[in-house]
């Protein structure tokens, strides 16, 4: 499997990173080197092996679904690059 520039453009959109057209081709070859290298994993026999889902062998704890925090809009918004309190603001989405 190898990545062409169209695939790189597609995953850049998925990752929401703008990539200039002239950078697509060098980036594709860099990523191909890495992907080509990780493909050696296909040599490993993993028939009947379950994928690891938990590093430490422990059961996920559960807690009561209750509110433990709140009333702190100022703190939530403190680092917002743009805001109109008590909201974050973004470019217009609905015309």
């Amino acid at each position, binding site marked *: *499997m190898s*990545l062409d520039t169209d*695939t*790189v453009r597609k*995953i*850049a*959109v*998925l*990752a*929401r*990173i*703008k*990539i200039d057209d002239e950078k697509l081709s060098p*980036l594709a070859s*860099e*990523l191909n*080197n*890495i*992907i080509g*290298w*990780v*493909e*050696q*994993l*296909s*040599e*490993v026999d*993993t028939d009947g*092996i*379950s*994928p*690891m*889902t938990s*590093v*430490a*062998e*422990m059961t*996920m*704890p559960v*807690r009561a679904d209750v509110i433990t925090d709140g009333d*702190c809009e100022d*703190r*939530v918004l*403190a*680092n*917002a*690059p*743009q805001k109109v309190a008590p909201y*974050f603001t*973004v*470019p217009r*989405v609905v015309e």
Partner: protein
Amino acid sequence: MTQANELTITEARDALIAGKLSATELTQSCLDAMAKAGELNAFITETPELALERAAQSDARIAKGESRGALEGIPVAVKDLFCTKGVLTTAASHILDGFVPEYESTVTENLRNAGTVMTGKTNLDEFAMGSANVTSYYGPVKNPWKLDDGKDRVPGGSSGGSAAAVAAHLSLAAIGTDTGGSIRQPASFCGIVGMKPTYGRCSRWGTVAFASSLDQAGPMTKTVRDAAIVLQGMAGHDKKDSTSAPVDLPDFAAAITGDIRGMKIGIPKEYRIDGSPAEIDAIWRKGTDMFRDAGAEIVDITLPHTKYALPTYYIVAPAEASSNLARYDGVRYGLRVDGDSLDEMYENTRAEGFGDEVKRRVLIGAYVLSAGYYDAYYVKAQKVRSRIAEDFKKAFAQVDVILTPTAPSTAFAIGEKMDDPIAMYMNDVFTVPASMAGLPCLSVPGGLGDDGLPLGLHLISKPFDEETLFRAGDVLEKQANFTAIPAGWGAGQ
């Protein structure tokens, strides 16, 4: 005369208890050393005022007989990946410009409650992605160890600033994070002790996430005993992190008895890699001999899937990173670059805010998780990961501790390996396998390489058996008797 900043934690603690030294004097001594060490670029943010304030509080507690223990008044430098309330936190990324957290990470909160004094936030690879501390938006860190060729060496990474700070005596200890070797490899490059605890031992709450199934905080210190003392102050169950292990903390330092007679030390044959420099084999053999001399039993073991650990890591870690780093959207904190639409604003912000290595990993992650490739890459990697973990489990049925080299070389010059990502990734070839299995590991300075730069020895133990790790590491440290110091950064300098 030894200056206060050159003391170990154990020595400083004794001086503080005896009233021969105040926390303020100790802190000031570190701050003075930091002020003279600007060229290392070890810190992104120094916090001298805060440090002196906390040192004064320590002195007041000590005067009242209310010392909080072994870490009271001890200066600790904090990797700038831990959120610190009211103090700029950057992850060495442009995208976190101006981010001042409203909360404190559990690990730094625990250390503060133990009486430590934070001296500043140390430099790192951007989002902890790197092995040389060259991907920081704030510039590379220089290793305090130098050679006559005039070339500056990397301190290793990603916790390069923390390692450089301890090696140059800018702090008695530092904390770092380790995803695939980010504490241990810089510890090896800088001639200090670095420890990655068992996954789940330290809370990840409030630590900027890179790869959540691998990230673990740990101590970076001058001695193994100091590492045990600092880990005691960092670790513990935390309800705010669902992967934090609900297990009691043993007294780590008490495990250091100096006696490892009969301990079984495993030597995995797969860590002998083709083309590895002779000095790496030599230091490994030296470590083996030191353990044998101390009365341990050396056992040859096999970890058959070792060579697949690094490629597995470079699927799992980027996949988790691409998902964790989705939060940097220009809306809630940090950098924002405007665009005509919401999507354009996201794309512009992330294009300008992330450096090349971070972009590379986020894109690889997005690719291996994308429709049609998920099973072929991500699920396959998680299956190989199960096999790697199984290898270790079998090995630990035979041995107590596994001994390997920490890194495949000494520190290289800044600028080397920059145009070949895979060559850079190879730095972590010995540290990544144990990370994939969540195991506790310790790097101890073993000696000097042919070029006169430090080389570490790497110990791995069973999950939650840090005690055996510290006991073995302390014996290795005493046998190695590593007393070399980077010229110009110690012994009264």
